[in-house]
């Protein structure tokens, strides 16, 4: 967060800032179509890529920005919140003081079981939505906002329903106004609990939300003072949440609110929290912070300050509206540049959802959720208020082993055997044709001739006594093994 002395993962080469955000006019092909689908969504099947490549670039971006309604997707799971409330009531009656009492232990065990069940169902629900949605950019932006305005379910008493409700704020405003999202989040029960604002009052203002709102969500360190933190914390006093036994939900507690005059970022007034959000989004640092986050998520890491400034100007001109901003970014020269291509590390969610989509698989399994956890990213569970660091922090020898083993699990799973995927369809091709198909479909050709040759030798099996030559008998198994090997190549870890 403090910035490093020299950028380590900024792409080599130099930026032409005057043309960076101008519309890209170069050739349009399957390779770039796949790039667009990976970045603006979660990748796609070979058919998705072909369809996108078959449209003009403008139409492909329009289809992502003006996304269809996703009403046909399954709704949020039943979240057992009612059970929680009932169990808490029972717990209160049984007397929580007497913690060793058998009946209390029984209720606690049941709460633990329900919590785990709910956890699995909500994570699966969102993952399956990312995989199956007809509006991938909507889900991608939802993930972006989730990583920016972070909240982690179950911490600080945040219920599954509250976490999912917050998730819908992000989804409903996916390409809406960043400022509006900040307003919604400032009244969001999950956030107010997560950052301790729900218990903040005029006598003891809690600074946690006020601080993180500026430090992590909107401005960044150095763009406000400690006095601004204290004053804005006063403004947010009384932004509170009803307890679960009273049905939950936001309420403004007038008695706890400090309605005196505050001086905040050079302005004075008897501000409330919404006034604070308005003042924040008038700071020049606000569009720059958002531009930095968008570029790191969608284009490349450690973007040049000039590029940040150029995108910040677009954001400010569009009054923080994301639809025109993303529309420009996804058509821009910098987005399709060689410098941006494969310049990001796939997050575990991108890696998993993308692999599912590649093979037309639709429903995540418990094994997949376990793998996500060991890769270091579980939706609804960011590790801290600053979200996922991403980039190089996704990769270490353990997480890479988990990635490889996940792919191996998937290509050999029952699910895969039952799905009629492109991988094993049609008559057995020659080893050469199979290699071209794998490298083309999985990596868009991003493998060296040497690696393609190794893959072909594996497929052919001629040189290895262990395998035997490619035949109708061993074709399916060999293709699965070869798909795994193709996905072991470095390009598959990169977005």
């Amino acid at each position: 967060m403090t910035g490093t002395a020299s950028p380590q993962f900024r792409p080599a080469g130099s930026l032409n800032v005057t043309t960076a955000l101008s519309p890209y006019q170069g050739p349009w092909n399957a390779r770039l179509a796949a790039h667009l689908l990976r970045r603006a969504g979660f990748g796609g099947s070979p058919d998705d890529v072909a369809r996108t490549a078959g449209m003009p670039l403008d139409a492909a971006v329009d289809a992502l920005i003006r996304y269809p309604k996703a009403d046909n997707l399954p709704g949020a799971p039943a979240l057992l919140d009612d059970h929680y409330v009932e169990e808490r009531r029972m717990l209160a009656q049984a007397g929580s003081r007497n913690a060793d009492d058998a009946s209390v232990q029984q209720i606690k065990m049941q709460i633990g079981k329900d919590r785990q069940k709910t956890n699995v169902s909500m994570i699966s629900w969102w993952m399956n939505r990312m995989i199956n949605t007809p509006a991938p950019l909507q889900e991608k932006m939802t993930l972006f906002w989730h990583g920016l305005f972070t909240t982690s379910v179950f911490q600080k008493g945040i219920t599954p329903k509250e976490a999912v409700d917050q998730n819908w704020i992000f989804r409903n405003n996916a390409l809406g106004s960043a400022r509006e999202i900040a307003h919604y989040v400032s009244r969001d029960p999950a956030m107010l609990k997560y950052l301790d604002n729900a218990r903040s009052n005029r006598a003891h203002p809690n600074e946690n939300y006020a601080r993180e709102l500026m430090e992590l969500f909107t401005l960044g360190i150095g763009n406000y003072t400690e006095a601004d933190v204290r004053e804005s914390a006063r403004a947010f006093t009384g932004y509170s949440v009803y307890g679960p036994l009273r049905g939950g939900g936001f309420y403004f507690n007038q008695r706890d609110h400090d309605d005196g005059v505050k001086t905040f970022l050079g302005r004075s007034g008897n501000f409330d929290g919404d006034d604070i959000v308005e003042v924040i989004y008038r700071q020049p640092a606000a569009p720059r912070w958002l531009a930095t986050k968008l570029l790191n998520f969608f284009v490349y890491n450690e973007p040049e300050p000039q590029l940040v400034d150029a995108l910040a100007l677009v954001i400010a001109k569009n009054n923080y509206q994301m639809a025109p901003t993303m529309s420009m970014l996804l058509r821009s020269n910098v987005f399709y540049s060689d410098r941006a291509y494969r310049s990001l590390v796939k997050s575990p969610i991108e890696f998993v959802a993308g692999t599912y989509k590649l093979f037309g698989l639709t429903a995540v399994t418990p094994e997949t959720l376990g793998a996500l956890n060991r890769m270091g990213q579980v939706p609804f569970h960011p590790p801290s208020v600053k979200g996922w660091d991403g980039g190089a922090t996704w990769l270490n020898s353990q997480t890479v082993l988990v990635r490889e083993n996940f792919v191996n699990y998937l290509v050999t799973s029952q699910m895969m055997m039952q799905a009629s995927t492109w991988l094993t369809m049609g008559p057995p091709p020659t080893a050469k044709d199979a290699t071209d198909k794998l490298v083309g479909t999985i990596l868009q050709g991003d493998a060296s001739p040497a690696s393609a040759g190794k893959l072909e030798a594996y497929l052919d099996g001629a040189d290895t006594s262990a395998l035997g030559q490619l035949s109708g008998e061993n074709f399916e198994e060999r293709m699965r093994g070869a798909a795994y090997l193709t996905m072991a190549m470095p390009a598959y870890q990169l977005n």
Partner: protein
Amino acid sequence: MRRSRFLLGAVSGLTIAASTDSFFAKALAAPALPGLPGGGDDRVLILVNLQGGNDGLNTVVPYGMQQYYRVRPQIGVTPHDVLTFNGQIGLNPEMKSLKAMYDAGNVAVVQGVGYPKPDHSHFRSTEIWQTAAPDRYESTGWLGRYLDSADLPETNLFNALAVAQVLPEALIARKVDVPAIAAIQGYALSSDKMAGERGAFSSLARDTRAPFSSPYLGTVAEIEDHAQRGSEELPKLVAGYKTDASYPATPIGRSLALAAQIVGSNLGTKVIYVQHGSFDTHAAQKGTQDRLLRELSDALKAFYDDLAAHGNDKRTLTMTFSEFGRRVAENASRGTDHGEAGPMFLVGGGVKGGIYGDHPSLDDLDNGDIKFGVDFRSVYATVVEKWFGRPSAGIIAGDFPTMALLA
């Protein structure tokens, strides 16, 4: 080739037949490490994270303070059970093994360790202890910065190692890729069992001659390569280590057994990170914490018995830490809530046994929490300078005096 094999056998007692072109062979063919006190290059730090916030007051018990029994009427440790250090303080009765090590002069207890403006969030406070940066977000860990500065051989995959599923922030470095290994058994490519794939995998996964450029391409290929070779070789490298020590059948017992195996296999490992917990005892604290402290204490005893039997105890320093201590007053559920300062233990090699720092006052509190007397960065700086012999500047930001903990 014969010569190499002979050297390997002579140096580490490994029974593996490593080929000469393995870079491990080169690392292992280096002269035997002396394993003597005061030796430099062979020193190892074992960092034990007590996850969840360990209650310091029921670990190092201030049984001589009347106030302790007033604020801990239900969960206070009965005076005659305390394993006394002196008339004021003593250890939790479940830590008999550690007490014996203390009596032998091998344990330093640092009391009241914390940092200014303590954060009560598990995550943020853990991050603060791991990065040694309470006042800003830092992308590398304190031990990661040590590893980067120590000029370690780039060919060694095991310069440091975390016995964990996910690499802890303390070991995140810029130059050194530290493997996180939950257990030797799980640290493997599942495809290794598949005929023909292993060989193809190793060359495909580290191919950087791709028809695109990416700032991450080299990193990905390097880590894939490390993961593949490391998972293949580590089990063999440590397989020759034999021990008679009887470790408790607990997660911390297994973690420290693996640590002893790695130390004893002379892989050039400087830091091993293990974790133990969860100490987040908001309710019914006594049962949970007593069990965890007993497990820790007994595992440390087995660990040092094992190390000593192989002559490795003097070059192995163990340090515990937890993201925070807990609230002074017990709560209504016979537990304690998140607090601030707590004690640290340093065990084994180099330690000057004794009690360091004053026991924090139980009357002069910060909103119900103990105030810290020793900044944890002083302890870290001591380890960096006196154990590893590196300047702490650039590793621990700020000016923190070292302590007399280590000889």
